[in-house]
């Protein structure tokens, strides 16, 4: 088993990156790898509740997040500094994520076999 870390840095909808990284996470989960899923920078917007992308004709990227737990993806982290810089509150989030700072992210990265950032 490998430890794979995913840095979700992109907002949802503006590009396909959020969805592309989520698909990687879910695939790795199917193969039962150890997954660390870290939301930082604009990636924190992916976690906001009440997203409604119907007007854009796009799929709701956040709809799959509650299923992460079923896939066994339970190491989900949120960069507190990114959240604060954007004036967001953790009570606005759709799924629970462990608050962390840069020190903690560095140590999650140091423990990883591979890191993917989108």
């Amino acid at each position, binding site marked *: 088993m490998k430890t794979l870390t995913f840095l979700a840095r992109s907002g949802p*909808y503006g590009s396909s990156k959020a969805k592309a990284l989520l698909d990687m996470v879910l695939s790795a989960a199917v193969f039962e790898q150890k997954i660390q899923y870290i939301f930082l920078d*604009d990636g924190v917007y992916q976690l906001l509740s009440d997203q409604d992308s119907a007007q*854009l004709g796009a799929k709701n990227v956040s709809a799959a997040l509650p299923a992460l737990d079923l896939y066994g993806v339970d190491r989900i982290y949120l960069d507190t500094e990114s959240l604060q810089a*954007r004036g967001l509150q953790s009570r606005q989030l759709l799924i629970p994520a462990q608050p962390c700072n840069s020190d903690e992210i560095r140590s999650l990265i140091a423990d990883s076999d591979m890191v993917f950032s989108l």
Partner: protein
Amino acid sequence: MSTLHIVSKSPFRTDALQRCLSLVAPGDSIILIEDGVLAVNLSILGERISGTDVSCFALAGDLIARSLTTAGTEIQQADAASFVALVCEHRNSISYG
């Protein structure tokens, strides 16, 4: 004869909004679209437009998708029809990537 500034990228990840704010002139308007709407609560934007005759809009569909609102800001929501009207009301437009 004024300009519509169209900002489609995140102010946290790119220099699009910053460049827009450096080029916006009295009488111009700004419209935030796509990831550009992530600027909606940004103080540098609010301060730049407050008390000026620069109007700022944000595409409603992009706000709703991202669970954002313009509440408490001077930014007005626009739908696609308003976006078209804004393009027509201004002499030219700049799309910032």
